[in-house]
């Protein structure tokens, strides 16, 4: 649009003035209804010294306002994970858009470990692209976003980011920190536990393998583990005064060979692969299942003991790898 106005004597040279004005929703909506989200208004005022008319060009761009994301409330703010499971974390916030709440088209939630990464949607650990937008009124909408943190996710400070986008793909975001606590957890799957030997073993038999070898110990937490093993002596069921040492039960971490096997003792003994039992999805060297340690057991029955049923207890204790 061109405007011609009267000249002013203080303008000596021809000049061009460009102004950019952002307009609010009402104007945008009017235009948006026919598919245009910005208008350019050009006002040229040409000033010619030879003419008694000044002309000034003003460019006015009325564009959509980017939405803003309010403070995010994250629940729970401290996450105590579940062995082998997940915890749902919910972030809620108010979204505002000066073009009106209905101009907001989507609300996306991201969760990432801020101890390890700087935020970028591509390195978000988890993304929920369809968070729930509700209660739109005036310039405000509410956004509720849930994401799951799994048992093997690293402990530390995490960030919950909510990103809101409008019809013109303008966006705004905010973030809130949460703490993922350390989880130490194990799972001993069937049919590998409890350790079972043939119902009858001859006195004097050596290194009889357990029928359900190996015992599997899965790390279902988020820290590397150190494993300790111990047991109690075998005691006669029919006669508790009869017993034989738990040291007749030997164990190692390979299916073949007893060279490196060691005896179970009454005192706790560490039995941990180098570096500890890793967190899922990493594997123990030589084992295909992730975060699983195998323990093979063999039992010898010493000569001279009475023919009875015997029982014992076997204990696996795990602590965080120091």
């Amino acid at each position, binding site marked *: 649009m061109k405007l011609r106005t009267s000249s002013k004597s203080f303008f000596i040279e021809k000049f061009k003035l460009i102004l950019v004005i952002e307009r609010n929703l009402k104007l945008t909506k009017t235009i948006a209804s026919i598919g245009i989200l910005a208008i350019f208004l050009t006002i040229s005022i040409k000033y010619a010294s030879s003419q008694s008319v000044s002309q000034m060009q003003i460019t006015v761009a009325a564009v959509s306002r980017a939405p803003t994301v309010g403070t995010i409330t994250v629940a729970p703010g401290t996450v105590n994970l579940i062995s082998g499971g997940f915890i749902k974390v919910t972030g809620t916030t108010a979204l505002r858009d000066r073009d009106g709440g209905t101009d907001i088209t989507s609300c996306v939630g991201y969760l990432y470990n801020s101890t390890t990464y700087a935020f970028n949607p591509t390195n978000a650990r988890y993304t929920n692209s369809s968070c729930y937008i509700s209660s739109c009124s005036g310039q405000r909408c509410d956004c509720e976003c*849930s994401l799951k943190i799994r048992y093997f996710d690293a402990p530390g400070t995490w960030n919950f980011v909510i990103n809101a986008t409008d019809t013109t793909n303008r966006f705004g975001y905010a973030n809130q920190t949460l703490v993922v606590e350390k989880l130490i957890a194990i799972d001993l799957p069937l049919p590998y536990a*409890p350790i079972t030997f043939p119902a009858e073993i001859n006195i004097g038999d050596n290194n009889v393998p357990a029928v359900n070898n190996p015992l599997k110990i899965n790390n279902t937490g988020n820290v590397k583990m150190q494993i300790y093993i111990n047991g109690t002596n075998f005691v006669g069921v029919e006669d508790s005064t009869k017993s034989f040492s738990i040291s007749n039960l030997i164990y190692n971490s390979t299916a073949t060979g007893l060279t490196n096997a060691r005896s179970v003792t009454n005192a706790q003994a560490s039995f941990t692969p180098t570096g500890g039992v890793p967190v899922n999805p990493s594997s123990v060297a030589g084992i295909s299942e992730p975060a699983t340690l195998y323990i093979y057991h063999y039992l010898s029955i010493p000569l001279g003991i009475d023919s009875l049923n015997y029982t014992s*207890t076997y204990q696996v204790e795990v602590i965080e790898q120091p």
Partner: protein
Amino acid sequence: MTLAAFIMFFQFVYYVSAISIGVSPAEKEVSIQARKSTVIFITISQSSDKNEIVTITTDVPWIEVEPTTVNLEPFGQEFIKLKIQPLQPGTYNATVRVSASLPGVIGLTSIVSSKLSLSVYETLTPQIKEIIKNNAQELIEKAKEAIKNARKIGADTTEAEKILAQALEQFEKENYEESSNLAQAAFTIATILYNQTVDEKSSVLITFMNLFLITISVSAILIVGIIYWRLKKKGRKNIISNKVIVKGL
């Protein structure tokens, strides 16, 4: 349906475990005031498909565990209250051991441990006391809001409300640290309840939708069957009437 059954079977196979136990946090550092009791919470969990009897013990006399035995539901999580008795200034360490057992000729016990580290201060400066008080106040408000939201969608918030009441009581007694811990626990419980209830409602909706789709499918099959049967019957009648016509001719 076949696919759903297959997935369910696969999940069943995947989750079958003999014994499972977890504790979080695996380590915790707490700063408390001398000669004042404090409560902190840890969570225990399991990922087996059976109930497990879990026992919680400590290696120090100044921690009172409540409860000491829990019947943990399949894939369940429970809060365990650790009441720390009044202590003199200094640094203290403790281990909380959580164990579950499996019977057998060689009975199996698995144990996981949580390490606690306590710094006990003589007195708190008025500024720090004010910060702790504000923190407690903030946590109480958050817990109230979370309980309100959970109650709104039909969750049973009795336990969370009970803990919140204790937090308020401690706040009145100016035990702000304990109040904060209790409020934090109430908030966490309410949030978990909220999420669980939302999940349950979603699953009910999905079941309803599945039933609706099954009804529609069965109805459609029946309608098609009836139409087919009627058309077939009509066709046979036509053949018979044609035969009659032919005979008549």
